[in-house]
């Protein structure tokens, strides 16, 4: 990527704990409903990370009342409060889609 673009992006990047596919993470998402603000936690398995810089995204999968749910977050969005690693995973793939069939 062009270094000038990286320079422009660097002002908008936020400190983030490092994690990779296969880890179990907690994503703290700030949600505004009308005037009320609260933080919603989405805990699950990292299925996929994509792109870099301000465009970085992460897809997290969890089971919600027996149904698999996947949610994709923009990592550097202002409404992402923080991301915690609950458990380090060990997968060989960078995108372990086979886990969908297992869990």
């Amino acid at each position, binding site marked *: 990527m062009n270094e000038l*673009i990286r320079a422009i*992006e660097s002002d*908008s990047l936020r400190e983030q704990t490092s994690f990779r596919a296969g880890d179990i993470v907690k994503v703290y998402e700030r949600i505004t409903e009308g005037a009320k603000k609260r933080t919603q936690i989405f805990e699950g398995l990292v299925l996929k990370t994509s792109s870099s*810089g301000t465009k970085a995204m992460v897809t997290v999968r969890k089971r919600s009342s027996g149904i698999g749910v996947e949610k994709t977050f923009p990592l550097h*969005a*202002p*409404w992402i409060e923080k991301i915690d690693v609950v458990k380090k995973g060990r997968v060989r793939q960078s995108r372990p889609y086979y886990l969908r069939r297992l869990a």
Partner: protein
Amino acid sequence: MRLALLGRKIGMTQLFEDDNKAVAVTVVEVEPSVVVQIKREEKDGYNALQIGYHKIDKKRVSQPLQGHFKRAGVEPRRHLFEVRLDEVDKYTVGDEINVGIFQEKERIDISGNSRGLGFQGVMKRWNFAGGPASHGAHFHRKPGAVGMCVLPGRVIKGKKMPGHAGAKRVTMKRLQVIKVDKERNLIVVKGSTPGTLNSLLQLRKSHD
């Protein structure tokens, strides 16, 4: 009437706006330009600034132009362009004009040469609808009928037909300035701009 600067398209990326929306933005590098000549009504018939952009070696400039730059007392530039301006008295020859003339949230117009697309059919070049792709149709991407009958017995001039598309001057109007970085001489605008990476762009303030 509006001060303009030249710049170079660096590329596009994505930033987050204050209201948490992700927006696609274009980064343009605007090197500081310099006033090379001031044209005045009395002498030249109109008021304008002649501005030079992008420093180059003296050897790359023709001798008559070398003299022009020498008289202004500035280093040779690759591009010279004129901006019609009423208040030329505010400037003197040799003044530097940088990206600081633009403010965040302001609207600007950006002109440049669009990407050349080569020889294209009417659907890409003129946004014709074309025909159905399936259901036994034999009419897919053709232009269709181009004229009438014996009267007028010819195809009207200017009829939209296939041909060379792109590679012409395009102006994007009222692009919003997201960010101005005076240290790095960068300006970030919302949306896209004409041209390929590294292409030359002209930036000027929009009419209110």
